[in-house]
């Protein structure tokens, strides 16, 4: 206890400028000067960050630091939250995400999301995965839909477990299976970026390991932004890591550097477990 408070006095709380290089040589999404407010409360303040092509970037930080809020900006899921205001500039391949002409439906088909709590539709496993392709008209025939469902479930590592129970309700699966089902549902529409909001927080280590393997495989095709509370997980799966603290982006860098040689005091305190 005493040691912690002594450390905190050493932290320079005014230094909230982002340490490290927030740009990426081959960016998929560029975010500049991003702020998110819920009513009067500021959740994210003036964040600049690039999401690279085919990279896995981990967003870490203590609870309430704004990393989920930032993540949800990337496919405008924040639009649905009452009283939420987003400012700043988001560009994906040069297109402004928050342009009034931007089609949100199209955006969300391109930028898929996996939520913290597994939330399969209360429908069959098959329909869960087939829903996205069906509404977007990705397959014209039943056979086409079946093929998408099969490949998506295979890529999510769930096919072998559920191939004989495709008509069972998705909610009857275990937590880890449900989360992989949600991943399969997200990748079934063939997104270009996948956002993951603490996808393993409700899972046991085995299920977590499967999801992490999956992230590795998916990173060959997609850009992945993952929010996580587990620093080991961030270290295992990501190429770059961004550390958020109370709404500020404190430090960005290659994952091994952030974890081995954190430059900012706050980052160091967090990853060494002094607070968070």
């Amino acid at each position, binding site marked *: 206890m005493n040691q912690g408070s002594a450390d905190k006095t050493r932290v320079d709380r005014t230094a909230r400028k982002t340490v490290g290089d927030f740009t990426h040589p081959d960016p998929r999404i560029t975010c500049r000067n991003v702020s998110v407010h819920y009513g009067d409360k500021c959740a994210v303040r003036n964040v600049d960050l690039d999401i690279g092509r085919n990279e896995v970037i981990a967003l870490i930080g203590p609870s309430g630091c704004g990393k989920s809020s930032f993540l949800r900006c990337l496919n405008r899921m924040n639009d649905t939250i009452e009283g939420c205001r987003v400012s700043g500039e988001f560009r994906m391949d040069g297109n402004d995400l928050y342009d009034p002409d931007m089609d949100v439906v199209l955006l969300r*088909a391109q930028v898929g999301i996996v939520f913290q709590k597994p*939330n399969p539709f*209360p429908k069959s496993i098959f329909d869960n995965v087939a*829903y996205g392709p069906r509404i*977007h008209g990705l397959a014209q025939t039943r056979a086409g839909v079946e093929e998408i469902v099969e490949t998506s479930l295979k890529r999510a590592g769930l096919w072998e477990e559920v191939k004989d129970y495709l008509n069972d309700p998705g909610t009857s699966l275990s937590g880890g299976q449900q989360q992989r089902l949600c991943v399969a549902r997200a990748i079934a529409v063939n997104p270009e970026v996948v956002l993951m909001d603490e996808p393993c927080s409700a899972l046991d280590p085995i299920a977590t390991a499967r999801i992490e393997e999956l992230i590795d495989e998916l990173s060959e095709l997609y850009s992945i932004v993952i929010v996580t509370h587990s620093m080991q997980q961030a270290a295992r799966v990501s190429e770059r890591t961004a550390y958020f603290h109370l709404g500020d982006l404190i430090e960005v860098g290659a994952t091994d550097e952030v974890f081995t040689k954190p430059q900012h005091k706050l980052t160091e305190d967090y990853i060494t477990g002094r607070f968070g």
Partner: protein
Amino acid sequence: MNNRGGADMPVDTTQIIKRTLARRYRREARFRRMGLFAVVLGLAFLSLLLFSIVSKGYTAFWQTFVLMDVHLDAGVIDPEGTLDQEVMFAADYGGMIKASLRDTFPEVTQRREKRDLYRLVSSGAGFYLREEVLQNPDAIGKTIQIWVPADDDVDMLMKGHFDRDKPEEDRRIKDQQIAWVDRLVDQNRIELRFNTTFFTAGDSREPELAGIWAAVCGSFFTLVITLLLAFTMGVATAVYLEEFTPKNRWTDLIEVNINNLAAVPSIVYGLLGLAVFINFFGLPRSVPLVGGLVLALMTLPTIIIASRAALKSVPPSIRDAALGVGASKTEMVFHHVLPQAMPGMLTGTIIGMAQALGESAPLLMIGMVAFIADAPGGFTDPSTVLPVQIYLWADSPERAFVERTSAAIMILLAFLFSMNGLAVLLRKRFERRW
């Protein structure tokens, strides 16, 4: 186990908790007993109500019939032998019934006595005879045996509702008539038979000819209109308000108004129906169409409130999931939220429909209280509804309408139960799909 607090906490916490436990359990037991008492009391009142209705009403499902030998006089029914339906329809069948009665009791000669004799059978007995003749024209010229309904006073006598020991002037049936009935009983010419008339006929001034069918039809047509309008509009309103409108002062105002409308006395809706639908739009009175419109207005707030509650209870994670794979807002609502909310919406709808089924006050205002003997054939035929029919019968002086009132209440309850059963089935179906 003890003294974790050391010197400054000398009392064992376990002891403290144990001391409070007895009191806490007592409180729980008391609450349980109160709950049980409330349930038992409720059930007692319910069974009392059902018992009183059934015990009063079950006799209405039987009706006293008299067996008569009727000579079908060809000269009266079909004088020209053409078998023309119209001629046969217009013949004096009542006269033949009377002639038959005179033959059965040849000692009756005086005018007044004859009149009392004729009162043994229903004034509608002729219609039964006509029906028989029109179906079997071959019988014309012969003497046939036919069961015709007895008069309601005879019916009451047979069912034991009249006290024979009372002085003659205090009862509706005379000593002489009782003697005749007893003679018919001795001859096995009188018996209680199942009362099909009650289920197939419309209202009548004569209890033995009155039936519930017209009111059932009226209620059915009215409720069809109510259901179609109130359910579609209610669900659409709820979905729009809950899912699509921004939350602001106007939607708050609308919400407050809807909640207030749910509490408006139903007769006010009747006045509105009278002023708007009948006087302004010129729709006919006493018809299921207007009744259904009025009841739809009355039920709408109930359905909207229940539907909004059902929509609110759909977990936001489902909405996020749908939006997350790129569903538009409308797709999200219709593919995921609405099916999830449907069981709750159906529950609300059924409550509203049950309310509408039992409602009579607003229908009185739009003229559905009129005496209507024929079953309506559509939405624009004059008709009455079950609760109004019950009210009308309860208001009638004849003793025989007492049991028919209770019987009609049973029919109303059966109608209600079957509606509820249907809703439960539907709800199960919707729930099983997930």
